[in-house]
């Protein structure tokens, strides 16, 4: 579905990704794990068009994404829930969700997705009129995911959805993420909590200082001594 080849990305003169290649298969839940600064978020930011690659290609269903502006990429069905949630904090929850479907014009589909989102996160329905900035951290994370779902994603990029959340919220969020597959959404999950990620992921890439170090199925990774030692703390 998505193919990244020899990707290198720079922040100014600092190289954040070096020659990264990876594949996302239709319908899978792919996890990217690794330490801070390994380049996980950079990969997501480059796919969604926030960053422009220096070299390398990103191909999504036979179309090249390199250098396309973010709004074009959203139109292709790739939605990105960034780290730190990035809600429109002065806008109401209802407006946030409305903007989630900004590029869609199928009123009926939008209405259905709203209902779906409310069934996944019932708390949002109670908070519709509230400014998003006044929600709790966990509620904001839910809203950020809900907003992305309103964009009818075929590929969803999730960056650190559990960051700073209580265990209870983390459970809820991971439950929802695990269920996205049934809805036909392919997911790329970036997560520091490697153990939680491996629990629900089909396949995993391990990144280190801007390069892919290892890759394989979750089961393989869980059995890998190196991964166990470095990322699972065993």
């Amino acid at each position, binding site marked *: 579905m998505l193919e990244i080849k020899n990707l290198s990305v720079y922040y100014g003169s600092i190289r954040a990704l070096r020659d990264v290649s990876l594949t996302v298969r239709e319908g899978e839940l792919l996890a990217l794990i690794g330490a801070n600064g390994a380049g996980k978020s950079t990969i997501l930011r480059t796919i969604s068009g*926030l960053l422009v690659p220096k070299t390398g290609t990103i191909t999504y269903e036979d179309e090249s994404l390199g250098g396309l502006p973010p709004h074009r990429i959203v139109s292709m069905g790739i939605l990105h829930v960034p780290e730190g949630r*990035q809600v429109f904090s002065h806008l109401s929850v209802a407006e946030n969700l409305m903007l989630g479907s900004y*590029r869609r014009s199928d009123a009926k589909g939008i209405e259905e997705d709203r209902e779906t989102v409310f069934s996944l996160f019932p708390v949002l329905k109670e908070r519709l009129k509230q400014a998003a900035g006044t929600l709790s951290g966990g509620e904001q994370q839910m809203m950020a995911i809900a907003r992305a779902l309103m964009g009818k994603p075929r590929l969803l990029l999730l960056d650190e959805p559990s960051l700073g959340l209580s265990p209870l919220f983390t459970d809820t969020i991971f439950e929802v993420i695990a269920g996205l597959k049934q809805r036909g959404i392919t997911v790329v999950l970036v997560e520091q909590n490697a153990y939680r990620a491996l629990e629900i992921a089909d396949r995993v890439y391990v990144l280190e200082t801007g390069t892919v170090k290892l890759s394989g199925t979750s089961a393989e990774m869980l059995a890998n001594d190196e991964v166990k030692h470095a990322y699972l703390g065993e």
Partner: protein
Amino acid sequence: MSGSYIAQQLINGLSLGSVYALIAVGYSIVYGILRLINFAHGDILMIGVYVTLFLMIQVHLPLPVACLLAMASAALIGMFIERLAYRPLRKASEEATLITSLAVSILIENLGIMTVTAQPRAFNIPAFFSQGIQVGPVQFTTMNLVIVGTTAVILLVLVAFTTRTKLGVAMRACADNLTAANLVGININVIVAASFALGSALATVAGVMLAGQYGRIDPLMGFVPGLKAFVAAVLGGIGSLPGAALGGIVLGSAEILLVGLLPPAFSPYRDAFVFIILILVLLVKPNGLLGSTERRKG
């Protein structure tokens, strides 16, 4: 000092404030999204006024029609300037964009001098507007009424636009969080162009109001009202639309009241008052009356 005198000054203040409010809204929308203080905003106002005058005199259009067409031209010019001068500087420093907007301002003013000369021209409005209306001891003109009424209608429409339409909500979204706006698929360039268009059109209305009151226009007419409207936007909390409107009205009223209440010897100092207010606001309440707290840089 009688109550009716103060009431009279309040009406004058409200009409000047309405003009500032309309200009300030344009500053605020653009600043909210791009963190750009567009010093050329006041000069776009001047262009709008000249186009209005041209359409009235040369094409014999009635004032409201001329003004509407001028709004459209100003909107186009505003978008053109953004595309040419500001878009290449999206990632540049605050100072670089500020200087550029000053350069654009000087450029427009001198283009004005070159094409229509620095000589002031008469801007005559239909006699209907200068009719006096007497309510008890307070006297005002139809023009006052039209200014305040038009501004009120425009601001209400603006509120509806920014809360009820997709484009309007997207505009607020861009001002709120540009990254998130990118990620929900909003084309930032479209929104920025729209905000320049909107701001420029509103500035034209404000300019026609100013021209109608003073009866004279010249190529430098926009600069000082533009600066004062910026003060109004800061006063209300730059980036906030209701703040810009409120700031404009408060500043206009304060200016008129200060001039009206202080001994006449002080009235030439009115421009100085405005900037003393600015410096005080920046120091005491830098986010303005309605501004949000978290976004001012360092």
